[in-house]
């Protein structure tokens, strides 16, 4: 454990200082005269709800977006970034919220693309590139070779490549936009160590996260944005978690999970012996009416893969599925929906939202059968349905015919959940429903889940967050390497047992929580 305020001198000048920065998109003012300072050898946490403008700030600092107003100063000198290269030359590097890497290239090429070492003919010096990459990977404890093709890596390892890439340039400012979202506990710990090393080297770090434990663990300073505006900043040591939350949402939010009465009904869904040649095997469980069944596991345990097979996306090699006692054959998502099973996917951008279609059409897409007559659309019905569910989920948008792509990640997630609730399903599978969602919306999603369960809907919730799993589930299935490692009733849920089963450790170990 390190202490927050130890090394902080008050009179250090910021390396980067953003002042009165404004950024508008068509119809949206993403940032409105915000300010942000980053100090050498310190970690500044940028906090705010979904859509507060955090990622937009990152994109401005890395030269991807250009501002509509305001100044950026580096060491006190005003600069303008016309391209990502300008920002890189100014010593700013970033690990972006989305993994921005190239599947077809090798790990080393991913790390060095754009600044590969050259030989005397001006050609890329592959040997040197690989040896440099290997030493970087060793430094961050990455367990794979620099020759590996990126597409062969799992999502967590890809994040490590992204981190290595950020470190491959000799940067003075390192930006991390939700770097831990896809990492396991062990990897997160390694990341913390890395942050400490970078601090010790005198680098300024901007750290974006929705996880408060994390922020209080490693940040020295905070800056809060709300709805694209600057709310305040200061030292972490001077603020309490509650005050920070209040600043962030403009009101105080109880970060406790909804109080639920756990009265589950008859069996709704029964899965027996689901298997896939390479992804999972022997998956059997039952789900009751009004129950919330948690699926816990380390990232990459195969939970999403199994759920997608249950939802008819991929074909299981074996296994049967019963709904209310009747055998059901689910070969496509369409059949799953017909049978009352819906799936809110984890990859919102690719699988959840139909970017390019307006919000209301996204919401009504699987429910068109109900809002139309003889296959003919009825727009008024569609708007009615969309309005109803966007209000229930407290959606924030300029209008219902706005492209869903213009919404922040969290609001897109709300639209996707709304889309599935509108089909009035019997079983809803939520894959990491609150990943990347701000604390206010998170509570809303949790309340909503509880409400749905109370109304008799059966919920399967995949989550990698232990508090969420423990706080919400009636029962938890832990998966490891494509198999069910344990099934735990509510009473036996402790962070320690969950981690133990997920990681396959037989002895209780220290520091697992």
């Amino acid at each position, binding site marked *: 454990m390190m202490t927050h305020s130890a090394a902080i001198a008050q009179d250090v000048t910021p390396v980067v200082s953003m002042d009165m920065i404004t950024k508008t998109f068509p119809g949206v003012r993403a940032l409105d005269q915000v300010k942000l300072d980053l100090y050498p050898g310190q970690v500044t946490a940028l906090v705010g709800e979904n859509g507060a403008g955090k990622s937009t700030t990152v994109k401005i600092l*890395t*030269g*991807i977006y250009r501002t509509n107003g305001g100044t950026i100063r580096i060491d006190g000198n005003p600069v303008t970034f016309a*391209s*990502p*290269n300008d920002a*890189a030359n100014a010593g700013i590097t*970033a690990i*972006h919220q*989305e*993994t*921005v*890497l*190239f*599947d*077809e*290239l090798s790990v080393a*090429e991913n790390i060095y*693309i*754009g600044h*590969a070492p050259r030989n005397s003919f*001006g*050609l*890329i010096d*592959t040997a040197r590139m690989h040896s440099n990459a290997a030493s970087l990977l060793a430094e961050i404890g990455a367990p794979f070779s620099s020759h590996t*093709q990126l*597409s*062969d890596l*799992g999502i967590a390892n890809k994040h490590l490549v992204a981190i290595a*890439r950020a470190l491959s340039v000799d940067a003075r400012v390192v930006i991390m936009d939700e770097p831990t979202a896809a990492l396991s506990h062990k990897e997160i710990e390694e990341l913390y160590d890395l942050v400490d090393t970078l601090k010790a080297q005198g680098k300024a770090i901007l750290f974006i996260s929705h996880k408060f434990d994390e922020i209080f663990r490693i940040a020295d300073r905070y800056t809060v944005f709300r709805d694209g505006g600057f709310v305040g900043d200061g030292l972490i040591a001077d603020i309490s978690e509650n005050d920070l939350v209040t600043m962030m949402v403009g009101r105080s939010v109880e970060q406790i999970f909804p109080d639920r009465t756990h009265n589950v009904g008859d069996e709704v869904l029964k899965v027996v012996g689901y298997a*896939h*040649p*390479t*992804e*999972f*095997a022997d998956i059997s469980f039952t789900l009751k009416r009004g129950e919330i069944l948690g699926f816990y596991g380390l990232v*990459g*345990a*195969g939970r999403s*893969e199994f759920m997608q097979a249950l939802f008819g996306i*991929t074909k299981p090699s074996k296994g049967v599925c019963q709904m209310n006692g009747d055998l059901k054959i689910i070969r496509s998502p369409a059949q799953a929906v017909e049978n009352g099973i819906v799936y809110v996917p984890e990859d919102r951008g690719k699988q959840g939202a139909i970017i390019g279609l307006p919000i209301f059409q996204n919401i009504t897409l699987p429910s068109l059968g109900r809002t139309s007559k003889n296959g003919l659309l009825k727009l008024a019905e569609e708007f009615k349905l969309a309005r109803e569910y966007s209000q229930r989920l407290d959606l924030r948008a300029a209008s219902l015919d706005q492209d869903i792509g213009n919404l922040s990640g969290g609001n897109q997630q709300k639209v996707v959940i709304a889309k599935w609730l509108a089909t009035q399903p019997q079983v809803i599978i939520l894959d990491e429903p609150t990943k990347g969602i701000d604390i206010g919306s998170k509570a809303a999603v949790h309340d909503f889940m509880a409400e749905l369960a109370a109304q008799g809907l059966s919920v399967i919730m995949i989550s990698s967050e232990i508090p969420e799993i423990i706080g919400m589930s009636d029962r938890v299935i832990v998966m490891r*390497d*494509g*198999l069910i490692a344990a099934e735990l009733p509510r009473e036996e849920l402790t962070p320690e047992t969950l981690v133990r089963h997920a990681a396959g450790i037989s002895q209780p170990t220290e520091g697992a929580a």
Partner: protein
Amino acid sequence: MKRFIPLREAILSAAILFLTLLVASRFPGFVAPANLANVFNDTAPLIILALGQMVVILTRCIDLSVAANLALTGMVVAMINVAIPGLPIPIILTIAVLMGAFMGAINGILVWKLSIPPIVVTLGTMTIFRGIIFLISDGKWVNSHEMSPAFTGFPRTVLLGLPALSWIAILTVVAFGIMMARTQFGRSIFAVGGNPHAAVYTGINVGKTQFWAFVVSGALAGLTGYLWVARYAVAYVDIAGGFELEVVAACVIGGISIAGGIGTVGGAVLGAIFLGVVKNALPVVDISPFWQLAISGSAILIAVAFNARSGRNKGRVILKSAEATQ
């Protein structure tokens, strides 16, 4: 994935070999070195153009204007040759390359600066370039006797047993091999096509890379324009009509993914050679010319289905047991 790429090329090489041997079993003359050299020489323009097209396709674009570019450049250099018969060949070559590159740049600028989809841009410029040939030539032909002997002679000049046309194709292949593997530009092309979004974040200018891809493709089309006109000793509006689709077909057969980001120089070359062998073999084995079209169509379909099969991914490996058996 890495494992599959050489496999794909091995299959294609095997198919070419098989085809060649099949023809040779009935017509041994087909595999005589002189004839094979001739087949290669015939295929040289396709190889050169396929390499240019490959670069464009890798960046998620497509260049349908290559054949029209070729024809226009060919017509212009032919008319220049008629007007100034003494102009040395290096200058003609330079003009052809620059002119082709300029037309490629027009495509590139429209794609880069105005973000018009490449297929639309090149569909438009394709018709415009053809129309311009008609305008400048009045639809008239430039015939062999009007061209200077040096002009028509260059592609035929034999060096170490191969005509210059073949040598130019070989040089282009080597240059592209180095460019794609060992230069910043070459790697950017893969990055831009593989994940344009990520390319932006890594400081690669996607539009600019696409622009240069079009310039490269255009320059090669221009070069081929001169070689084509000189080789066949005639220039008119319709030369190489429809050739753009053959070029795309060569790339696709060679395993260049039309979705961008995946493909190799070797693949493009083999794809072109495959089509070249088919084309040259059919008349030799005396298959009625009416069958040619259907056979090359089927060849494209089979090759593509084959390629897709060998490269299909089978889901992730999570199960420990499955990992062991892989």
